């Protein structure tokens, strides 16, 4: 049974691949009905699927494909001309075939779909020619007129529907019996490999054997016109169907394994970032030591290999976008017949590769856009002719790489977008206000078509008019971190560009700081960063804005969006990260710009998903977690956020000046890396009864401060310390509003004038040089904390 499942899986994968190609080939065939090569290829697909399905006992599918094969065989021998109507029947049967394959995939059996009607029509196409020398066209036109009845063969003319059904049933059973016989003969002798060749002889297919398979060329070619590409694509798709004489160039890998690999690479990238950071630290600390060079080399090799590995794995997940493009020729064909328009589709660059997950996501948006172009863009032939355009409208589908992005461009030479009409319709539907409409640029007006509820169609048709499609396009593309660019000229055509990042898992990000927190902003949506002084911010209607060259840029503070508590003093200068999404722009005020980094996107998990403004998280080089900003959501949130008042530091300051009732209410921190020195200071101050807290270096001191377990009245700080020296510690402490007025006393053996200067610059108010007398230290401390002498 397992073996059967395995074969079944292979069969399904192969069949879906073949069918994908089939659609395109058939549309091609309609244009070149005499192309024998094309016909042979299509025939072989039907034949392969028939063969395999009969081997696997899928009778319905076998039955259907067998009849398809008959029609195609006729055409191949020149007995039947493939015209639009025959093609309709063939395409219908292929749709049925697809439906059957889907059912097989889901249920492992092929019941549930009635193929008889279609088989009847197929038969008619076949018989149409076997009979007397009547032109094929007339014969096939007939069934169209009486569509309900599936048969019009003379023999059956007198039958009513039931009898007809019975007759078909009888023929079907007969056929199935034959098939079964064949199958038994086959399975007796053959494994899967030989089955192919046997069937070919059985069905008298002399050419097929002699027509040697086109050699497979796995190397990808530069983008060129679709017609040239077809041949090689076909060869690739059809390759598995032929007997593999050469060594196989590809293997199929479960996507789950690739995903797992990708996750592991993600971990590796994180570890690499961390290694680089540690390397930097070590370098700083042991400058000039000889082992450093070796460490440097190793780190750079690891980082290089990791990057290469990441690219290599990303490439294994890449699929040519042709996978998506392939279904459009068929769609255009169906649409043009439905809409009575003449439309030609040109495809360029279908070899352009994209991450698998993205390829899966862009399909739907493209369908909507192309439908839209067919329905609203391309005019009917009469109008086109009247305007001096070619009656045949052209839609061009193009894919190419541009930097870290892939661009999918959809152009049509239709009537273009009418800005005034767009505005009028939007006003009618209440999507925009009169004022908005007046201030709108042409580019902004084009984007109206993406608004939910917007529709240009006068009435709802099969193709469009529900006002849903383009809205979906926008959401889907933005979900992929992509942007849409529209350009249009009235009467000449419309051009849409979808710009999508190559991969979803690892992105370049700009890291920004606000107070003590960091956030990552996807670099793709960052247009530029500017430094502004606080008086460059203006207020218009209660919202902050700034002038950026010619434009007025709305501003919002990242701290207001993410409810960041303002504990640090705000600087005179702020940085503005200009975010751009399509035509809308927003300035995000941040405290610091940390830098650019490659980050691995991690989900926040089920528990925290869907937090507004947060797209995910990433793990940084130091092992900490940084949240990734959801730019689209931020743009939306910025409209509702109010600027909060500057945090007042008075409440915190009040805590520091609490009433002291006894000596131990005073607390002083001693920061020194030498235990002896700490002991000396402790001894000097113990007599006063002041509470003393010790810290071994600057970092420790800072974390004790942040914990807030004590309210310190003063700090004694040594300058020379590992990890964080006294100057840095003082500078850090002064960043906090609540410690603005905390007296910092340097206790050091550094006596140079420049040392004293640095001390003052970093915010120290007293400078005690070692050695000192115990009384002197005690008196300096007492003076600075306003120690009341009655406690002594």
């Amino acid at each position, binding site marked *: 049974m397992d073996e059967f499942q395995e074969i079944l899986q292979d069969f399904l994968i192969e069949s879906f691949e073949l069918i994908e190609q089939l659609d395109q080939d058939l549309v091609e065939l309609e244009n070149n009905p005499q192309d024998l090569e094309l016909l042979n290829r299509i025939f072989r697909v039907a034949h392969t699927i028939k063969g395999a399905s009969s081997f696997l006992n899928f009778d319905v599918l076998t039955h259907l494909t067998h009849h398809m094969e008959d029609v195609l065989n006729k055409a191949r021998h020149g007995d039947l001309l493939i015209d639009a109507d025959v093609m309709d029947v063939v395409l219908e049967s292929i749709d049925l075939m697809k439906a059957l394959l889907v059912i097989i995939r889901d249920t492992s059996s092929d019941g549930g779909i009635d193929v008889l009607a279609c088989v009847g029509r197929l038969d008619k196409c076949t018989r149409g020619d076997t009979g007397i020398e009547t032109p094929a066209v007339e014969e096939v036109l007939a069934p169209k007129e009486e569509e309900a009845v599936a048969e019009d063969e003379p023999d059956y003319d007198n039958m009513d529907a039931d009898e007809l059904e019975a007759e078909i049933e009888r023929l079907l059973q007969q056929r199935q019996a034959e098939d079964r016989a064949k199958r038994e003969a086959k399975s007796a002798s053959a494994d899967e490999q030989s089955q192919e060749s046997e069937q070919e002889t059985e069905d008298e297919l002399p050419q097929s054997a002699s027509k040697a398979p086109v050699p497979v060329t796995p190397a990808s070619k530069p983008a060129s016109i679709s017609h040239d590409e077809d041949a090689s694509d076909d060869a690739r798709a059809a390759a598995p169907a032929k007997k593999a004489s050469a060594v196989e160039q590809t293997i199929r890998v479960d996507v789950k394994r690739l995903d797992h690999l990708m996750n592991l690479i*993600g*971990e590796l990238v*994180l570890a690499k970032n961390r290694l680089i950071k540690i390397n930097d630290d070590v370098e700083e600390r042991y400058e000039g030591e000889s082992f450093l060079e070796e460490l440097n080399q190793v780190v750079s090799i690891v980082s290089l290999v990791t990057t290469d590995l990441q690219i290599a794995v990303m490439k294994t997940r890449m699929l040519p976008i042709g996978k998506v493009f392939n279904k459009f020729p068929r769609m255009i064909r169906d649409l043009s017949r439905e809409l009575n328009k003449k439309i030609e589709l040109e495809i360029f660059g279908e070899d352009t590769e994209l991450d698998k997950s993205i390829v899966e996501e862009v399909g739907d948006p493209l369908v909507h856009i192309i439908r839209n172009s067919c329905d609203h863009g391309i005019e009917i032939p009469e109008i086109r002719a009247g305007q001096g355009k070619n009656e045949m409208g052209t839609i061009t589908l193009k894919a190419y790489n541009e930097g870290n992005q892939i661009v999918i461009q959809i152009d049509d030479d239709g009537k273009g977008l009418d800005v005034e009409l767009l505005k009028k319709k939007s006003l009618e539907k209440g999507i925009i206000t009169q004022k908005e409409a007046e201030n709108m640029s042409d580019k902004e007006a084009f984007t109206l078509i993406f608004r939910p509820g917007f529709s240009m169609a006068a009435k709802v048709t099969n193709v469009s008019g529900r006002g849903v499609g383009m809205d979906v396009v926008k959401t889907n593309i933005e979900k992929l971190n992509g942007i849409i660019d529209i350009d249009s000229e009235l009467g000449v055509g419309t051009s849409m560009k979808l710009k999508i990042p190559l991969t979803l898992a690892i992105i370049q990000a700009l890291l920004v700081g606000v107070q003590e*927190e960091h956030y990552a902003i996807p670099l793709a949506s960052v247009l530029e960063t500017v430094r502004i002084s606080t008086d460059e911010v203006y207020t218009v209607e209660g919202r902050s804005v700034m002038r950026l060259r010619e434009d007025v840029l709305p501003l919002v503070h990242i701290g207001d*969006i*993410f*409810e*960041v508590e303002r504990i640090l003093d705000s600087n005179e200068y702020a940085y503005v990260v200009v975010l751009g999404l399509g035509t809308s722009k927003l300035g995000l005020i941040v405290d610091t710009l940390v830098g650019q980094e490659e980050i691995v996107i*991690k*989900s*926040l*998990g*089920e*528990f*925290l998903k869907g*937090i*507004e*403004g*947060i797209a995910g*998280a990433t*793990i940084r080089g130091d*092992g*900490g*977690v*940084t*949240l990734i900003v959801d730019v689209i959501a931020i743009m939306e949130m910025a409209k509702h956020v109010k600027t909060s008042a500057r945090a007042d530091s008075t409440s915190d300051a009040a805590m520091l000046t609490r009433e002291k009732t006894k000596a131990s209410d005073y607390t002083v921190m001693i920061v020194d890396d030498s235990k002896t020195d700490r002991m000396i200071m402790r001894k000097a101050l113990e007599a006063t009864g002041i509470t003393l807290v010790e810290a071994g270096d600057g970092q420790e001191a800072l974390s004790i401060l942040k*914990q807030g*377990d004590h309210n310190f009245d003063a700090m004694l700080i040594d300058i020379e310390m590992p990890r964080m020296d006294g100057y840095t510690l003082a500078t850090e402490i002064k960043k906090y509003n609540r410690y603005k007025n905390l007296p910092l006393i340097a206790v050091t053996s550094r006596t140079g004038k420049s040392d004293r200067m640095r001390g003052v610059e970093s915010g120290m108010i007293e400078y005690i040089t070692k050695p000192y007398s115990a009384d002197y230290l005690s008196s300096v401390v007492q003076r600075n904390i306003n120690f009341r002498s009655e406690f002594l």
Partner: protein
Amino acid sequence: MSEKLKQIISKQSRAEQEGINHSEDVVQLVGFIIGDEEYAVPILAIQEIIKPFPWTRVPQVPKYVVGVFNMRGAVIPLIDLRLKFGLSPKKHNEDTRFIVMRHGDDIAGFVIDRLTMAIRIKKSRIGPAPETANGDDTVIDGVGKQEDRIITILKVNKLLERDF
């Protein structure tokens, strides 16, 4: 010597058998303190217990969701059970632990005040949740009775359920 060894071995195997016999109606729990009360969760729902380390605040969530932290490459939410149970916040001290619990694919870390011990308790000694806390919404699975104390057993799946 070999006599003694045999004795030990036979004693061990006997003990093992007894263990097997009893394991059916014994539940293994890990007990911890939040505020003044002792709680417990099934030992199998616990992925690991770690000392507190830095986490990142997440905006727009209830106060008891203190943030997310990195556990060997996975981003995991951190929930303060004191706040979740309506107690006042408390500074982390050296007894504070993060208990990482898992139920299916859901995973989260919980801040607790202090661990007590691993508890083996007979199923028969576990009573239902008190009437007042009954229903589907409660996080209380039952109440375990030991000689000298009462332990509230929590539903891990409820703890891991998002309720905002």
